[in-house]
């Protein structure tokens, strides 16, 4: 037995909508027109939330804020596949997922205003508090999945994190443990290609993030993260697999951070305008609009209505958030 081939592996890439918004019908997920429209509304809501949060920060009405611009498909598409009984472990840049799951918008803003009361998740949602220590939420998802398995609950767990988080030991340790116990957890990496100023190739020499799953004995798939239908399909499949006892899945949603890392950052210091322009053309909202427009389901006028509704919702939420009384010092000891 000389230099025997021990094993051969393949990594797949999933996309449903191409850049022009035309769909591969064979891969089209089962979604009603209403559902797709709802997805569209949620992406627009996320975009409007984001734009407002950035401007509130500029006006000194919010603290440092990490924009999600460009990642709406990855967030809305994946959260749309979740059931109420599933558990979600976010990082700090998944406001699109929160909005999709119905997290109260005033409370979501309140967090970035520096108020712990924001993290008191409503009782009907199983969304963990934001996690600022990059990657450290990933093992929690594994623990929740262990509990689900032990309880024989019909639920699954989703954990979100960025490309930068894949460099941390927590990512590895959690992936490895999920593999060993074949747990009902879906690891969703939003590969937005930047971790503050560090581009993906400064983060890992691995050609894809998806292939990292090979070291843990379960499937890793790269998904076009700006294609909401692909993200939805991949997440739904992974969740069903998880709930059926067939173990974990790793999804790399390849997307792009279109804005600065946070409102305290200036991305112009470390990346080119050309790169940003290229990805602006791949805007996930634009792509779904093109898809819808092709069947006459979207017009600029309808788009404006959706946006106006979103803005009105945000307006109200901002008002509510700002009307909340300042926390009392006694709340330091609350919990």
């Amino acid at each position, binding site marked *: 037995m000389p230099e025997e081939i021990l094993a051969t592996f393949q990594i797949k890439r999933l996309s449903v909508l191409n850049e022009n918004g035309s769909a591969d019908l064979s891969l089209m997920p089962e979604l009603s027109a209403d559902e797709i429209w709802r997805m569209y509304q949620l992406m627009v809501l996320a975009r409007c939330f984001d734009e407002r949060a950035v401007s509130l920060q500029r006006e000194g009405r919010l603290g440092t804020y990490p924009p999600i611009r460009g990642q709406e498909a990855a967030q809305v598409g994946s959260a749309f596949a979740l059931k109420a009984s599933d558990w979600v472990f976010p990082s700090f840049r998944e406001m699109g997922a929160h909005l999709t799951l119905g997290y109260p918008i005033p409370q979501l803003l309140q967090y970035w205003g520096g108020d712990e009361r924001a993290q008191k998740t409503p009782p009907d949602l199983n969304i963990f508090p934001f996690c600022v220590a990059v990657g450290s939420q990933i093992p929690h998802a594994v*623990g929740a999945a262990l509990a689900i398995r032990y309880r024989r609950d019909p639920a699954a767990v989703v954990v979100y994190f960025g490309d930068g988080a894949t460099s941390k030991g927590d990512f590895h*340790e959690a992936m490895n443990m999920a593999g060993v116990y074949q747990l009902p957890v879906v690891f969703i990496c939003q590969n937005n290609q930047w971790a503050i100023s560090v581009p993906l190739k400064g983060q890992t020499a691995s050609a894809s993030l998806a292939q990292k799953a090979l070291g843990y004995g379960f499937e890793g798939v790269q998904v076009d993260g700006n294609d909401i239908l692909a993200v939805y399909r991949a997440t739904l499949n992974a969740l069903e697999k998880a709930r059926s006892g067939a173990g974990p899945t790793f999804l790399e949603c390849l997307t792009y951070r279109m804005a600065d890392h946070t409102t305290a950052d200036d991305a112009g210091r470390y990346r080119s305008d050309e790169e940003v322009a290229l990805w602006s053309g791949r805007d996930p909202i634009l792509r779904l609009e093109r898809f819808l427009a092709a069947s006459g389901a979207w017009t600029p006028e309808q788009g404006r209505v959706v946006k106006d509704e979103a803005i009105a919702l945000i307006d109200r939420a901002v008002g509510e958030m700002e009307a909340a009384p300042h926390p009392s010092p006694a709340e330091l000891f609350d919990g």
Partner: protein
Amino acid sequence: MAQLNMVQAINQALADEMARDDRVVLLGEDLGRDGGVFRVTEGLQERFGPERVLDTPLCESAIMGAAVGMAAYGLRPVPEIQFMGFTYSAFEQLFAHAARLRSRSRGRFSCPLVVRTPYGGGIKAPELHEESTEAIFCHIPGLKVVVPSGPYSAKGLLLAALRDPDPVLFLEPTRLYRMIKEEVPEGDYQLELGKARLARKGSAVTVVAWGSMLERVLKSVDGYDAEVIDLLTLNPLDLETLLASVQKTGRAVIVHEAIKTCGLGAEIAATLAEEAMLHLRAPILRVTAPDVPVPLAKLIDQYLPGPDRIRAALDEVLKY
């Protein structure tokens, strides 16, 4: 009542509580099939199955991180770290997550877990097997730190810890695992967390100790009119017991096997200097290990506080 050693007492507490409460789940390295490197969890996997007594991959931070997720979901996980010297890599999960979860989610999520780990020196084991870094954990808001000093307190404190709504670090003095046998009631009993124990009455000096140092202190104070406090809970401190004793004796000596600088002795002395100052007739002395890493076997006896150093401190404060 049976005469049990500490290994048996802890095993019994775990078994009883698992039988009583199906939320209690153990996880860690080698604690299932092998029954733990000190056999503390012996027989539990056989009895409760591999889903409740989980042999994990070799990874302390994942053990702790998974425990956080389990606790938040509604279980009462009991992660074991094989030796205290391997808690470092689990530190972020404990500090930034387990201990804060209730506060930062304003009560929406809580984290009732009990981290068990053997600690302390004098067993002639390899590097990092004899650490005593309890002070670091006492600096974590939201985490309770508990140390039994014998089989009876081990069972009673562990049962209380397992029912506490918040995270508890339960330190097991390795040197005592099989050293002391005591009467241990078979049924259910709890020792309230946050309460110290008067291990010996006296009126001339108060000696504060915990874990395996307690046994050493009790041996050393023979012939002295010393009151000995067995702390049992390191955080929060039982101020009432400490102050009552020092107000009576006017003198305090603190003995611990951790290094001196920023050890828990500092917190106790500082508290006395703040709250009992007008009752003190002598400097507060700390008898501790020197500020160097825990040595290997050949020098461990020179490192740990011994009876000579404890008595010298007593003699010194009694001069006042």
